[in-house]
């Protein structure tokens, strides 16, 4: 096994990981950063984010309003210290990206433009046409190239964390091109591996989004927090699940059912607003959880359109005109045209809700510190309490930057204080055990299960039982099924025995991670007997602040279902209230 020593190891080289790496390199070029990623940085799924990044910009906006939108959008499950810090740091981070060359879309006077987004009371979403995540990722990647202290380990698949005496001390990874194993030793490990949408069958998330970092932390004894909160984005393309950005509605697109009726007005988001004149925070600019839930009801009422790829409603953008669509939304125009054969300039596009984002993740505080000293997490893979029960669109790209920078500062201080703390032999033995586990998996016979088959079954159960609406019987069944899948996982056989770029082995390791993440989603969904934000129970239809204004913490148990504990939500100045997305508010 190869041995690499660093001051800070960052696992994941998407937006959050790159931002953190740059922050460490800028703070002190003598600090050695090991940036470990299973893909080249520009393949990271940040690239698929379309709409933009939120940060107060306009003179008519305020940090207070961004705070209130976020906390209300999160159905008061947000930790408000985190939100306060986030809204305050957001504009500076977005401006930093401007200074690094991000090609933000502009106003005529040359200032950065902002657009409207769901659940936001003011226009505050910075955007680069409809490729905002792509440009943020490439700007960060290219900027990172000037720092020699950032050592990249591209296409290294992280296997498990190393920890000793309750402290995280490193990570073991496999180099894909050689199959060789690497032990990374560092006092500070930052996990930035993104989400886990691949737990579900129909998702905007790329194939790489398999919850690797969440699962590694979970296996190391760190709890996953609020995992039952899974965001369905209301406008995915049928079949592929490709995202049509919320920017479509921000620019004025409307949603209609099969009767041509703007059904959102029937779900507390009316009255109807004039076509082509979107009003902030109502109708099509309501929050994602509410819009996806409204779709579910329309489907039950028989108001959706049947397609071979599931029921759909229509996103109508025709009134925006060709010029605006091609200027502001060129990517989604191309995607809809290519993948479903609809030109949104001329016709409405069929869309349906699609799994998009995990509000939950590795339990962290405001600094990205997990309960295990030395282990940090940022971006989607973390749950700092920023997004609560439902994330507002365009808060997550900003979070990559804010949490990446803030966590890096904390990790630097920690690494400098912690230094090397001995236990080399024990760590090496731990690393060897991890490698042995992988070698055994590679060699095991049996083949009672296939990776693709087991993965398909898991996804079907998750969608059926832990989707937009849930109930006791369904989530109970899902918990039992996922436990069964974990047993059956022992029966998979890897056909590919090569050491070189073994994607069969990688798929098996990813499936293990998916199953770990899946059991926290189903367990949280079962135990949270209330409806809040993206977690809706048919048998507990109201929010229950007396019993459930709390975070769910799932702890892994080797041969049993996860243990659930609860932790307090930090409320500073916004007491739980009513989420009002009707146009009659104020």
């Amino acid at each position, binding site marked *: 096994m190869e041995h690499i020593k660093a001051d800070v190891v960052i696992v994941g080289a998407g937006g959050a990981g790159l931002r953190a790496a740059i922050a460490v390199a800028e703070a002190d070029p003598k600090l050695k950063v090991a940036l470990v990623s299973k893909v080249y940085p520009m393949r990271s799924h940040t690239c698929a984010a379309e709409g933009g990044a939120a940060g107060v910009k306009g003179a008519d906006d305020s940090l207070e309003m961004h705070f209130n939108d976020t906390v209300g959008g999160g159905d008061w499950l947000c930790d408000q210290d985190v939100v306060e810090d986030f809204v305050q740091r957001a504009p500076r981070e977005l401006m930093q990206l401007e200074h690094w060359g991000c*090609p933000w879309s502009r106003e005529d006077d040359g200032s950065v433009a902002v657009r409207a987004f769901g659940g936001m009371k003011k226009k505050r979403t910075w955007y680069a046409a409809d*490729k905002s995540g792509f440009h943020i990722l490439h700007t960060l990647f*290219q900027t990172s190239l000037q720092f020699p202290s950032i050592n990249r380990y591209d296409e290294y698949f992280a296997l498990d964390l190393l920890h000793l005496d309750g402290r995280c001390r490193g990570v073991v990874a496999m180099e894909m091109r050689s199959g060789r194993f690497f032990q990374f030793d560092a006092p500070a490990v930052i996990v930035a591996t993104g989400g886990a949408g691949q737990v579900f069958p129909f998702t905007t998330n790329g194939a790489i989004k398999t919850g690797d970092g969440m699962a590694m932390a979970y296996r190391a004894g760190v709890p996953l927090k609020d995992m039952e909160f899974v965001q369905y984005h209301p406008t995915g393309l049928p*079949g592929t699940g490709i995202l049509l950005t919320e920017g479509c509605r921000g620019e004025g697109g409307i949603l209609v059912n099969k009767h041509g009726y703007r059904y959102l007005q029937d779900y507390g988001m009316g009255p109807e607003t004039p076509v082509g004149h979107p009003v902030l925070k109502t109708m099509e600019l309501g929050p994602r959880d509410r819009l996806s839930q409204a779709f579910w009801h329309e489907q039950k009422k028989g108001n959706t359109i049947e397609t*071979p790829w599931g029921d759909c409603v229509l996103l109508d953008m025709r009134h925006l005109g060709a010029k605006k669509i091609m200027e502001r939304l060129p990517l989604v125009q191309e*995607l809809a045209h*290519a993948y479903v054969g609809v030109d949104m300039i001329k016709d409405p596009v069929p869309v349906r809700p699609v799994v998009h984002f995990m509000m939950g993740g590795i339990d962290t505080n405001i600094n990205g510190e997990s309960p295990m000293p030395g282990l940090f997490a940022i971006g989607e893979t973390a749950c700092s309490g920023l997004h609560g029960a439902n994330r507002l669109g365009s808060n997550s790209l900003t979070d990559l930057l804010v949490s990446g920078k803030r966590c890096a500062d904390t990790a630097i201080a920690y690494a400098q204080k912690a230094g090397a703390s001995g236990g080399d032999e024990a760590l090496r033995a731990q690393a060897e055990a991890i490698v042995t586990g992988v070698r055994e998996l590679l060699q095991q016979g049996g083949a009672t299960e296939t990776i693709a088959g087991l993965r398909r079954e898991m996804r079907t159960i998750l969608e059926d039982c832990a989707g937009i609406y849930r109930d006791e019987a369904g989530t109970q069944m899902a918990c039992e099924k996922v436990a069964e899948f974990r047993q059956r996982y022992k029966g998979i056989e*890897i056909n590919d025995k090569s050491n070189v*770029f073994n994607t069969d082995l990688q*798929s098996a390791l990813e499936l293990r991670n998916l199953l770990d993440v899946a059991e926290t989603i189903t367990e949280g969904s079962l135990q949270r007997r209330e409806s809040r934000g993206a977690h809706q129970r048919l048998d507990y239809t109201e929010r229950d602040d007396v019993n459930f204004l709390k975070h769910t913490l799932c702890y892994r148990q080797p041969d049993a279902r996860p243990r659930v504990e609860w932790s307090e939500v930090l409320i500073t100045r916004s007491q739980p209230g009513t989420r009002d997305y009707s146009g009659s508010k104020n």
Partner: protein
Amino acid sequence: MSTRTRTLELEIMRYDPEKDKQPWFQSYTVPCLEDWVILDAINYVKENLDTTLAYRWSCHMMVCGSCGMMVNGEPSLTCKTFIRELPDKVRIEPLENFPIERDLVVVLDDVIQKLHKVQPYIIRKDPPPAGDQEYIQTPGQLAIFKQLTMCINCMCCYAACPQYALDRNFIGPAALALAHRYNRDNRDQGKSDRLDILADHDGVWDCSFVGACSEVCPKHVDPAAAIQQMKIDGAVEFWKQKMGIPGGKP
């Protein structure tokens, strides 16, 4: 959208350096939906017929740049290549002009180094604006370089480039276009820093302007045009420096 099916025969190049002396082809018969892209057909093989097949992919929406391959001899982004545009027999090979790592996976070290080499980041001689102030950049100034920012690094252009095929030292289309992107950004003052690399014999002057890179680019970045503009820019810059004219920024 259509649910019609069609059977495709995929001939996929296989190569495992641990056991194969040279690459070989394996055939798979794949029942496809008419709407599929070729990546869907490859995924079908992986899930149902042969789990040992190695290739890169992720986003399936033309933006991560992972899934570039040769499809019937053309460098193609496989998530953007629809089977309705293909004959019944399709040959899939790893990208041309790169060493094969395994099956359809190529070694990218060289082009990654080239991205490093062109200094693709904002270089400033003057201090930037205060932390809460943006550089002023009008929509017109943005338009000057915007298309060049669209590159997803799929490397199809390198697979198509006849010059790169002849000389691996040639910096090549994507990296040169990226350098030009920063040169043309009004926030950047690093044009003269990049000049030595770009005006070197492995830089822009090596391009024979066949334009194959621009033809295969799935994002219409047009590296060929960028390289031609850089030749002019480079010549102007060279004489400016020669004659001691300060600045060097248009």
